[in-house]
């Protein structure tokens, strides 16, 4: 997929995706050869409800430019209310980021079911463009300096 154009800022986006929906949608997008930017690195979770706010904070502090969370549509979570808790945490995190001064636009959540490959690729395209517009995340330099690595 896409080549890095020299000099242009290529965001690093971490995507926490539910095994039962968004992760499968990403798979579908892949097998159907739909194009989406390679900037997103997916981390598979068993449910969006497993995405601890601390995961989000940690990846931001370790240099991510954007964080994406993908879960099953309300009513379709395999664990009944995992995604509903995830939505509450996501809403809290948006405000937490804003309160300390990290642009909340760098965090995005979507419901993407296993059959919505197109929605997945569109969302990633859109989010990548948005993050490109925002520029490097506030802790991006940390990674390049190789500091604070675990």
């Amino acid at each position, binding site marked *: 997929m896409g080549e890095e154009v020299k000099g242009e800022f290529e965001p690093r986006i971490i995507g926490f995706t539910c095994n039962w929906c968004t992760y499968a949608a990403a798979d579908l997008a892949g097998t159907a050869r739909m194009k989406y930017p390679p900037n997103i690195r997916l981390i598979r979770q068993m449910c969006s409800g497993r995405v601890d706010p601390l995961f989000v904070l940690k990846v931001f502090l370790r240099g991510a430019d954007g964080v994406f969370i993908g879960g099953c549509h309300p*009513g379709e979570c395999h664990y*009944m209310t995992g995604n509903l808790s995830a939505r509450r*945490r996501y809403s809290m995190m948006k*405000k937490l980021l804003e309160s300390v001064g990290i642009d909340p636009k760098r965090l995005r959540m979507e419901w993407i079911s296993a059959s919505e490959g197109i929605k997945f690729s569109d969302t990633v395209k859109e989010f990548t463009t948005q993050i490109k517009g925002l520029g490097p995340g506030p802790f991006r330099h940390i990674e390049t300096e190789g500091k604070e690595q675990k």
Partner: protein
Amino acid sequence: MAKGDMYLAQASDKEILKQGESGGAVTALLKFALDSGVVDAVLGVKKRDGNNRYDAVLDLITDPEKVIDCAGSLHCVSLNIARNVKEYLDGAKQMKIAVPCKPCDARAIIEIAKRKQINRDNLLLIGLNCTGTLPPVVAKEMLIGEYDVNPNEVVMEDIEGGELIISLADGTKIAKVLLELEKKGYGRRDNCRRCNVNIPTMADIACGKWGVKEGEKKTFTEVCSDKGAEFIDNAIKTGVIKVEPPGEDAITERKRKDREAIELSNKCEAEDLKELRGFNLDDRLAYWLHMFDRCIKCFSCRDACPICYCKKCFLEPDRGYVKGGEVPPDRMFHLTRLAHDGDSCVNCGQCQDACPAEIPLTRLYLMLNIKLSPMFDYVSGMDVEQKPPLIAAKDEEASIDDIDIFLVKGEASEVVPQQ
């Protein structure tokens, strides 16, 4: 008696009436709670050695005759009542305790009771109205420098009509405007400036002086729970307190003073958070990172926060977020605590009081909490039955697809003055 009933109450015992701050009703009720076996102990606040009002201590009292040692209000203290109940009294799981408490104490108790670390059922909460406490060491400096008095000669402090009034042993009263004192770095604790819950209706009974006529020795008492109603009923029957209905004027006066205090706190909040709110995101982040980098990782904020709830703390190195032995600590240290406590913070100020690096932690927590509260319809520490917002997902939400329902609700409330 029922929830919502109000009285002007007075201790029947002459000595209690004399020693009491208002009508001595609180002391009389606490003593009655012990005498009648409603509780096993009373957790009172008293001067160390009976004379040092700048070094208040908590006292777990089991002898009814000793309850009177705690009579009177101490303003130059920031005792951590909730954390003490949780940590050193086993969360009141083994004994019943009556606790006189300010709104922030009561709210902290309720928040941690929701996390099953305090047994609310075993507590009788006798709430005290409050509009502020002062940091003791700074208060002494202020008394010498601004009031020109010997701190040891002060017998009473009071906050009334925007003034801090002190009384000396010889009857002299000196009043100074609070906001003026605070401009000079004196006055109330930083969080108290912005505290807007003055009447502890979340307790079983709420007691205060508002609504009592100047010069009268009475305690304005509001019944706030069924438990409180039953308890007061018995106290009146036994004759330990005398009650009379407060006139309409007394009720109105109390409401008016409460409203005035809320207005003052809103004004202080707008003033104190103005700079932070005005920053663009980059400057705000730079500000907080600069503050966080002052941290010496003493863990005092965590240890003081009455609602820090993890049994196995995420700030410890073995949890994999914050490396051991690193100062200043990884920023995860601060953001973890903010993520865990921001929704339920009761603005008690214990974290900031404890911080040797003087990081204005309560401003950060309050700023977040003010945003979360309307989003989730949640005011922390009010109702033990109301679950903290992050674990309160309701079944109905399964039929709402909108990702931003809470954010939209929050934004709708932000139209209120935001200067």
